[in-house]
């Protein structure tokens, strides 16, 4: 009975692909999200998505594939954020703010200068819908997710060291700058691929909320990563089925489930008291 109920939406190929994409993105984003949450640049997802828009405008004007434009813009911006932060000595969120607004504004101006004839809604090419995931999108996410997980796994110790004790890391001779830029590049690619497949709200939420939920339960880095991935996948599955049976949009519902999980854990967490002490410092 229950099994039948759970299988009902999966008769449709596009719903099955949507569910698979949501779970994959829940896991991938949560793994990278551990760094995002601990380093405190939660809005990088939103920023990179809007920067990708400028890439799409440029691609539209220059006549090459939208996806390539978005990817190049996001990777360049990721590197730019890292460079501004290191060379100019500003905090990461400031660097994100500068590049986000600057590059997005460039996109808006270019669009109004460059597009004189019949326009298309270019925004709709940045912000996908989880119900319109194509088989090729799923392959991209799958390949990308595998790549991200393997690379983070291989460089786990180095990334941890460089991100959370950069001075000591540099003293031991690790290429700290390069590793940080590498992480930002990984993040850029993940965001672009996910956003154009499933939409911006879902990606921004998945980069932050599941990892933050995990943060409430543990202070071990690897445990936080695994728990975050678990919360991401769980939110995707629960949210997807809820949206099907309640007849509401899927992306938004998944985000609401992730937020509800966070609230639940925040209230029930045995570590909450310690967390408050930690925040009070």
């Amino acid at each position, binding site marked *: 009975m229950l099994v039948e109920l759970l299988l009902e939406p999966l008769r449709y190929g596009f719903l099955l692909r949507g569910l698979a994409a949501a779970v994959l993105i829940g896991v991938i984003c949560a793994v990278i999200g551990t760094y995002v949450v601990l380093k405190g640049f939660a809005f990088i997802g939103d920023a990179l998505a809007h920067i990708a828009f400028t890439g799409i405008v440029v691609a539209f004007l220059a006549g090459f594939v939208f996806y390539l434009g978005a990817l190049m813009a996001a990777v360049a911006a990721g590197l730019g954020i890292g460079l501004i932060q290191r060379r100019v000595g500003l905090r990461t969120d400031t660097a994100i703010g500068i590049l986000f607004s600057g590059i997005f504004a460039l996109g808006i101006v270019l669009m109004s200068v460059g597009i004189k004839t019949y326009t*298309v809604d270019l925004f*709709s090419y940045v912000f996908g819908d989880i119900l319109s995931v194509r088989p090729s999108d799923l392959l991209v996410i799958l390949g990308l997710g595998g790549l991200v997980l393997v690379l983070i796994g291989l460089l786990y110790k180095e990334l941890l060291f460089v991100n959370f004790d950069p001075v000591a890391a540099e003293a031991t001779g690790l290429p700290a700058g390069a590793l940080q830029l590498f992480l930002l590049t990984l993040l850029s690619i993940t965001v672009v691929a996910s956003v154009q497949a499933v939409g911006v709200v879902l990606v921004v939420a998945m980069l932050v909320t599941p990892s933050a939920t995990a943060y409430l339960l543990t202070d071990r880095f690897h445990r936080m990563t695994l728990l975050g991935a678990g919360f991401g996948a769980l939110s995707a599955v629960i949210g997807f089925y809820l949206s099907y049976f309640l007849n509401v949009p899927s992306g938004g519902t998944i985000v609401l489930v992730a937020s509800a999980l966070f609230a639940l854990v925040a209230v029930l967490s045995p570590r909450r008291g310690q967390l408050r002490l930690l925040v009070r410092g």
Partner: protein
Amino acid sequence: MPKGVQRPMARESWMAERLRCSYLLALVVAVLLAACSRTAPPPREASPATTPAAGNQVRVVVSLPVFISLVEAVGGDRVRVSSLVPAGTDPHTYQPTPRDAQALAEADVVFVNGLGLEGWLGDLITAAGSGAPVVELAEGLQTIPEEPHQGTPETTPGQSTPQGEHTHEHGAGNPHLWLDPDYAIEYVRRIAQSLEEVDSGGASTYQTNAERYIAEIQAFDAWAKGQVQRIPPARRKLVTFHDAFPYFAEHYGLELVGVIVLSPGREPSPQELAQLVDLIRQQGVPAIFTEPQFNPKLAETLARETGVKVLELYSDTPPTGEDYIGMMRRNVEHVVEGLE
């Protein structure tokens, strides 16, 4: 209280004040920026017939690009037409710019569709202080009420909400009347009559031009009805991206089976799409129609699921270089190609 206590309090309130000021400043700059980014919009496909006597022309502002060719057909060289909504932009959610207010303020007459399609326009006309008459082309015409097309028996209570929203947005009845040639003829008559009122000197020109264009529309319509006859009756079924084609469908005897999104920007739920897939399969709908200004991904997903074709239809903006009749001809050709 001693001074020592007052001072930090004063400083605090000063800081709060400064914070409030910065916030306001940021808001103002944001609004200005948003306005600036639109002040140089793409040209609105204005009348190419810029005669030297531009000062004597009747300045007409229309809401949608599709109305430009109707007004130009009637007004000829006597009018200069511009559209508020740029080509290929969604009129439901369009954000007007300062230049739009200027165009309205300088206009001699304004033509809009009405029925809530241009919900943002009322405030703008008031704000622009325009004294020009505003003619609602669809006013008082018989409309099709906006009912769910997906006549699914298992309609859940949740489904009534989005439908209600859409109805609210469009006001009474579906506003896309001009996609039915009979209504377009009515629009042309109203345009001619209003132009006469603001420019009585051109009355005979407007009458002659209107009669000629109406004859052209009728000729097109006769051709189009013949084209639709080529489609086997069982295949005369339409699934469109958004709910713009009920009048078109009724006029040409096509059954409107469903729409993909009720209103542009409103995300469909998985169940709505699943039900639409079932309907397409059950009824053997041969094709799905998108509109060129929207990302076709969702329609392509449904087409892949059901194994049908995807084609384009035009609603608000004719394809480059085409007038109303040219746009309608493309629509009919695409329908025949998709369903035949």
